[in-house]
């Protein structure tokens, strides 16, 4: 392959991988702590993107304010979702299938409300209005400020989250809940409060992910739904409970979607339409061959053997 193509897709792999990692960490947290396969996670990403878009259009071009607002907006939506739908249903002992169906419905409702609003105000395929500058240029590769913002932001948030999980009492409580929900409840951990905070964190991470995604490509109401598959694949690669595994998984998914796909196209002429199948193949292979994920239970939030 020509060097410029290699560098280009390498850069894209790193950038997209960092964003996948941000989004997938939230998903892994919900899976581990709340034990809910949340399909509406996709819409949290979209909401974050649109909050960022609106604030960039009306308020400011400052990156930190935009990302902060996206964090808050998605966090609130996630919290509302939990309080209005998931918690009442979980209290009535709905089966996992029922919860899956419920999260699917919540996602649909949010997605089409966004569709209605976006349609009404003509916000399809918009870019978040932040100035784009070229910060680094060689004959082979051009790096913009977006790259130097999104990757460090994602990495910084990952570090903060892992410090919270390891060092603070909230993190300990989350891990306890992930490990054994009933035992955690018996020990007197304020489960409701921890769930509330978990949802806020999950929503916020997804929101920031969506906002950065919207700067990198364009936004439409299906943005979240189209990325959620890769995000699930990253989470599955992490064994659905492992923190490091999820981050690793996000980069694996991103590299296979971009660099590997590019190579397959170059070498075997595989059409780029099949890129959509990459995360699916990863999910199937992992679930069948190595359900514990990349890192096994080494980095798992729920250090338990099977079941």
């Amino acid at each position, binding site marked *: 392959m020509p060097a410029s193509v290699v560098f280009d897709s390498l850069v894209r792999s790193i950038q997209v991988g960092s964003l996948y990692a941000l989004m997938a960490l939230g998903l892994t947290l919900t899976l581990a702590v709340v034990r809910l*396969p949340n399909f509406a996670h996709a819409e949290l990403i979209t909401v974050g993107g649109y909050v960022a878009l609106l604030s960039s259009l009306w308020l400011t071009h400052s990156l930190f304010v935009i990302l902060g607002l996206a964090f808050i907006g998605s966090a609130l939506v996630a919290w509302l979702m939990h309080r209005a739908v998931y918690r009442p249903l979980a209290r009535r002992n709905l089966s996992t299938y029922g*919860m899956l169906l419920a999260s699917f419905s919540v996602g649909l409702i949010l997605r089409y409300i966004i*569709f209605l609003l976006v349609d009404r105000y003509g916000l399809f395929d918009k870019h978040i209005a932040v100035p784009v500058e070229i910060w680094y240029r060689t004959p082979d590769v051009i790096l913009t400020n977006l790259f130097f913002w999104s990757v460090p932001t994602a990495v910084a948030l990952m570090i903060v989250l892992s410090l919270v999980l390891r060092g603070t009492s909230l993190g300990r409580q989350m891990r306890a809940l992930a490990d054994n929900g009933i035992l955690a409840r018996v020990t007197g951990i304020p489960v409701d409060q921890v769930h509330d905070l978990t949802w806020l964190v999950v929503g916020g991470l997804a929101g920031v992910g969506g906002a950065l995604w919207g700067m990198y490509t364009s936004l439409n109401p299906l943005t979240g739904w189209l990325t959620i598959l890769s995000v699930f694949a990253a989470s599955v690669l992490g064994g659905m409970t492992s923190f490091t595994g999820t981050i690793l998984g996000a980069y694996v998914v991103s590299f296979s979607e971009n660099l590997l796909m590019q190579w397959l196209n170059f070498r075997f002429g595989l059409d780029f339409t099949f890129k*959509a199948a990459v995360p*699916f193949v990863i999910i199937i292979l992992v679930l*069948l061959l190595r359900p514990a994920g990349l890192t096994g239970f080494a980095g798992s939030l729920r250090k338990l053997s099977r079941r």
Partner: protein
Amino acid sequence: MNIDYVATALALLTVFGISALMALSLNLEYGVAGVPNFGQAMFVSIGAYTAGVTYTRLLPWLGGRAGLDPCGDTLTKALALRTELTTLFPTVGFLNFGLTVLIALLLGGLAGYLASYAALRVWEEWYLGLILLVGSEVVRILAQGYPPLLCGSNGLSGIGQPFVWVHNATWSAALFALLALLLAGAAYLLCERLVRSPYGRLLKAIRENDRVTLGLGKPVQRRRAQVMAIGSAIAALSGVLFAVNLGFVSTNDYTVALTLDVWVMVVLGGVGNGRGALLGALIVTVLNRLTAIAAIALNAMGSQFEFNYVRYILFAAILLLMLRYRRQGLLPERARTTIAHDELRP
């Protein structure tokens, strides 16, 4: 607004028959056997794609005029040939339709069986839902990305229903509606027989607790795979009817939205109750038609409102409300007592 009542009624009946097939299939899989099939759209689409392939390859061959490429330069010619064959030669059309149904049943069953192989060997119960939901989207994208199948994203038209040769449009529609209802009725009877048999009781036992059933020495995985094969075959049958009713096959019709429709039918009507599935299919069919009429009326009044979005919100809200307040559906599953073997003896 001028409405042709007979035509509307016939269209509603046809769609009801097709929806009933989909709902019965999901009810057998999820309601009775507890397999959460979130890939209903994929199994329906298998039937539809089969119809797309047979109408473009098998039908010309049966009519003795094979070898015309359905896409590309010869697109209009191939379409004219399809239409000619289905309207002028009833026997060829019938033979083709019958073979389509047979192939679709086989392919659907096979797909269900294969899907169960991958999906039932996973750890936590909901992984299956994830795999099927995701799988159906991927199959759709691949079908769209492989042009020889359905001419890519353009789709295929001229997939006429088996009674297009009847000159009177009303009679033609009535015959097709009758066929759809007959097939739905047959599927209903089949499902009822299955559910009331020892086989059906085993399926319910698996749904209630698969470990206990496994512990009793029952072949849990094999039964689940079989029920997915049966359910998917019925779904593929509904897909054939769906396609010929529209007269058009395109990958865009078999999205997650279709899966949502079928789930609303089952959850609304009654999980595990065949009659509930029928009721759910009826309600969803009528609601779909009403929202379509409302959308047309609103557009005529000059509203800027995209009503299709509201339909999704409405259906998702119905699902949430049912899950919250009436989980067993409008017609709950009734407990069936089977008389002891001794009492049955004279």
